[in-house]
């Protein structure tokens, strides 16, 4: 079982090595095949591990395997060790499975780019990093994986190296994540100081509570917020859509951005010692889900709409994790991986076919030329809105139900979640009605180019098809009132704090489905049938278009003061003290030199005078001092 987990981890690494060292020996397409194949190996190994674990008893399912001591200093040791337990196997399956699918899709999507090798190497790095993140058996390696996924995110967002927007977005993503990494590292330092170790088991067992505990949890939460693009560290995610679409699907929808949820679930003992922080996570999740939903309403870039939707959905997951409904959160993580990847990839087919165009005003009606894609996109949309029997229905509604089980705060969060459900319906189907059901624009008619007579390359269509099916059936694994294998599976790792009753489930479902449908109807009225004009409120419009002015705020609070500080330092320290330090010295030295040089007049009499004067002075000194 642990060997399988190691193989899961190592397979993408082998792909990286092969692609990097192979260089030009490997054909471009070959890189894609290599990456896909090794990721599938990874997935297969994950499945094997899952099966192996399935056959074991509960207590035996959690195993730590240490390869070597990665880092030690004094009494502190951190091993290169992996933890194989239900939660990590669950994540391994999602990551490697979805990863493999999307990398396969990329073979088609990236065809023709002249740097495919680099792309697939990056993708493999990402898969490796993500697997490291979920498999690590201590917080240090988790942080390592955490940073590595940030790195691969940076690399992939900036894949189009010549586009300034892409590079800028990549840097922004990395730096905001670095900030999260830093807060996490601080939490780790606290843990080291108070427990002496970062291995999950002893750390969780001995973690302090009280203020220290709160600080630790806050540090971890900072990392989670940054990684999962939750308020207030969310602004990088929409910009990250500058990356190629498969990247958005894999990293910024299916896997990496959900790492924050994984972190909370994984470290729930720490959060539970600081329950206020856990609740804060829930509140931030709820706030994000509403805000993102609102902003998504006015976006005109197809990928950004989906990105905001991603933020919103992760908000749900945070809500779940924050409320202690860990299994529900993980379940939603999984279904969300399916349907959000699907949405992105389907959108990617259109974008691919239309030479990279992403503006929905130009894409209007494009879906009509791609029926299969439309069908899949519809599947994904319905899953997203949570219409039964699509996947989202099962996962999202159980989260909302958990809210009902957690007191007053839970009710408020529940209400926000329901608002989010309405917004989800509205923005999702705004997209659907505009892009897939509208009258094709001249641009679309002119530029839509079919790939060998099909909507797109087989690799892409195949992946989208598989995901389309998964979006439909993926949720059937668990239907909370009746059967809950995932909750059972994860229970030994993360026992839930919330156990909603069937009644609560029913109320939540009914409301959510109702509001979702309402959203769809409103979208149809406004965009599909144009029966109702889109309301125009200047202030609201501006606020939403500026994404609640977060970027501007950060610019004013961080970037500009930093620049001004640097300038002030330049004027106050670097120029006068550092650059100018020698000027003053040099000037003084030159003055002194010219003095002595002038004293050397060339007049021999003055030399004698110096001798005589000095002698006289010496005599006087002797007489005085004797």
């Amino acid at each position, binding site marked *: 079982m642990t060997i399988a987990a190691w193989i899961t981890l190592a397979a993408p690494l082998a792909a990286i090595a092969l692609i990097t060292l192979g260089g030009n020996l490997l054909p471009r397409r070959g890189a894609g095949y290599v990456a896909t194949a090794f990721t599938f190996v990874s997935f297969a190994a994950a499945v094997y591990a899952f099966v192996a674990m399935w056959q074991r008893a509960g207590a035996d399912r959690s195993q730590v395997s240490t390869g070597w001591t990665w880092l030690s200093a004094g009494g502190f040791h951190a091993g290169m060790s992996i933890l194989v337990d239900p939660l990590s196997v669950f994540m391994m399956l999602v990551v490697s499975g979805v990863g493999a699918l999307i990398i396969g899709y990329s073979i088609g999507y990236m065809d023709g780019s002249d740097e495919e090798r680099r792309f697939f190497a990056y993708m493999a790095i990402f898969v490796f990093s993500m697997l490291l993140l979920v498999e690590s058996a201590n917080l240090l390696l988790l942080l390592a994986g955490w940073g590595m996924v940030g790195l691969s995110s940076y690399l992939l967002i900036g894949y189009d190296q010549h586009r300034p927007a892409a590079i800028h977005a990549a840097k922004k993503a990395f730096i905001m994540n670095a900030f999260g990494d830093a807060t996490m590292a601080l939490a780790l330092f606290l843990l080291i100081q108070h427990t002496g170790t970062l291995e999950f088991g002893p750390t969780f067992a001995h973690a302090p509570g009280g203020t220290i505990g709160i600080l630790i949890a806050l540090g971890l939460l900072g990392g989670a917020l940054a990684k999962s693009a939750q308020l207030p560290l969310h602004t990088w995610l929409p910009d990250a859509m500058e990356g190629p679409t498969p990247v958005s699907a894999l990293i910024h929808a299916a896997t990496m951005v959900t790492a924050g949820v994984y972190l909370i679930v994984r470290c729930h003992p720490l959060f539970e010692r600081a329950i206020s922080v856990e609740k804060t996570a829930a509140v931030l999740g709820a706030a994000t889900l509403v805000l993102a939903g609102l902003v998504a309403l006015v976006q005109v870039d197809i990928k950004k709409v989906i990105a905001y939707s991603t933020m919103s959905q992760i908000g749900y997951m945070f809500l779940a994790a924050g409320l202690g409904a860990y299994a529900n959160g993980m379940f939603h993580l999984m279904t969300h991986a399916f349907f959000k990847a699907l949405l992105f990839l389907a959108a990617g087919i259109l974008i691919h076919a239309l030479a990279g165009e992403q503006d929905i005003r130009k894409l209007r009606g494009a879906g009509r030329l791609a029926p299969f894609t439309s069908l899949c996109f519809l599947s994904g949309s319905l899953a997203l809105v949570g219409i039964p029997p699509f996947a989202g229905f099962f996962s999202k509604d159980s989260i909302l139900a958990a809210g009902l089980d957690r007191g007053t705060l839970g009710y408020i969060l529940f209400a926000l979640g329901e608002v989010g459900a309405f917004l989800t319906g509205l923005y999702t189907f705004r997209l659907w009605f505009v892009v897939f059901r509208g009258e094709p624009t001249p641009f679309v008619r002119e530029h839509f180019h079919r790939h060998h007579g099909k909507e797109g390359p087989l690799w892409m269509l195949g992946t989208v098809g598989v995901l389309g099916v998964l979006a439909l059936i993926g949720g059937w694994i668990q239907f909370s009132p009746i059967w809950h294998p995932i909750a059972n599976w994860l229970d030994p790792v993360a026992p839930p704090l919330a156990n909603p009753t069937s009644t609560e489930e029913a109320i939540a479902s009914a409301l959510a489905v109702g509001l979702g449908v309402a959203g769809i109807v409103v979208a149809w009225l406004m965009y599909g049938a144009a029966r109702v004009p889109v309301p125009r409120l200047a202030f609201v419009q501006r606020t939403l278009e500026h994404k609640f002015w977060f970027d501007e705020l950060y610019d004013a609070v961080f970037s500009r003061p930093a620049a001004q500080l640097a300038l002030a330092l330049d004027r106050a320290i670097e120029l006068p003290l550092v650059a100018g330090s020698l000027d003053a010295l040099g000037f003084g*030295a*030159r003055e*002194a*030199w*010219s*003095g*002595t*040089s002038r*004293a*050397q007049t*060339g007049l*021999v009499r*003055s*030399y*004698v005078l*110096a*001798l*005589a*004067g*000095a*002698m006289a002075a*010496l*005599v006087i*000194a*002797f*007489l005085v*001092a*004797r």
Partner: protein
Amino acid sequence: MTLHRPHVDWFSISPELVLLGAAGVLLLGAVLVPVRGRRPFSAFVALLGFGGAFGMAVAVYARSAHGSLRIAEALFRDRYGALAQIIICGAGLLTVLVAYAQRMRDEHVGEFYALLATAGAGMAFFVTAGNLMTLFLSLEWFSISLYILCAIDVGREGSLEAGLKYLIVGGFGSAVLLFGSALVYGETGALSFTGIARASAGHSGDVMLLIGFAMILAGFGFKASAAPFHMWTPDAYEGAPSSVTAFMAAATKTAALVLLLRVVTTAFPGEQHLWTWALAAIAVASLAVGNVAALFQRGLKRLLAYSSVSHAGFMLIAIAAANGLGGRALLYYLIPYSAMSVGAFAIVAARERELRQPVTIENLAGMLWERPFLGFSMVVFMLGFAGLPPTGGFVGKFYAFAAAYRHGFVWLVIVGVVFTAVSLYYYLGVIRSMWARPAGATSLAPVGGSPPSDPLLHAAVAACLVVAVGSFFAVQPLIEIAHHAASALPF
């Protein structure tokens, strides 16, 4: 009336005698040997003279384990003096090699070497002097030789000017020293150092003794070119022929400083509380003046002259320390310092012969690449002056500072360190100028094509290089030698 002629210990003055013999042969040669062969003949004889004196000094060193006064207390025969003689003769030996290719009037080449040999002999006497009379007379002996050597290039204005300035200031300095001697003699009734110490043992701090002592110190300060008695130094060094400058820088300073230490310790032990501070103050003044004045100096010889002023300061630190460590430090330091001085001025001489104009920082440009051996050697000498490893200058400075520290002069260590830092600017500036590419104007050897190869000068530079670097590695044997020598002093 019977004369009780003192026993003359011929062996103890054998270095001087060898040199004087060489000088005599040289003077004869200057008359008898035809002009064409005079140069090689003279150089050879001078070489033999300095070499023989060097050998005899070594022998005296070896056979004078216990210091003693010889020839009616006029001379010391001890390892201290012998070591100084060794250094002086070594410097003279190298100077002969450096001077060989000098474009000097052939008719006077014999006299030139004769004067060099007599100057060496005078210094050899000087460092072993046991009373004020020997001191003064041998001082004048080598001083007059040097005045003439300075001015010997009579065709050139600078040389004459240097000679005259040296003579006037030197005459004044000698007179001051002499008057001081007279006062000390008047107070103590003794001329020999030990006698002075004996006579003044009871009443230290006597006015007349102190005035005399101060004047003697001033005279020594002049000879050692310590500030503020140094002002003749740059002019004389610049005007004198470079080989003479080399000899003056190395040998004169050696002689003056060595005897200064002997005088202050053997004749004035009772005034130690005064002369330690006085010498420390002179050292500080020398360090300050020498280093600051050299900072932006363009003429290389002047720069080196100021550097020699500053080195007088460094060595005075060792003397001011007034302990055995200081004695060792001084003697040790003089070895690499003399080698580096001779070497540096030899390189200046080579460059002058090549360019036929005074060497400045500017026209050193490119030397490191065009004359790699000389350039490299110059780099090493400059590093040595600056006290950087791997040269004896490093260890020498370290010893001097250590001695001062042991005396309790921590402030003096700090001052020395600070001025070492200042000195780096110009020493490294010389190095920098040597790798700089000539701006185009300065061309090599404008007339006569490539300069004649000068194997003797190169050999001298190589020897200096060996000593300068070797003294860094062979500290222990050299320090032992210095230790034996310094133990002749009453610490």
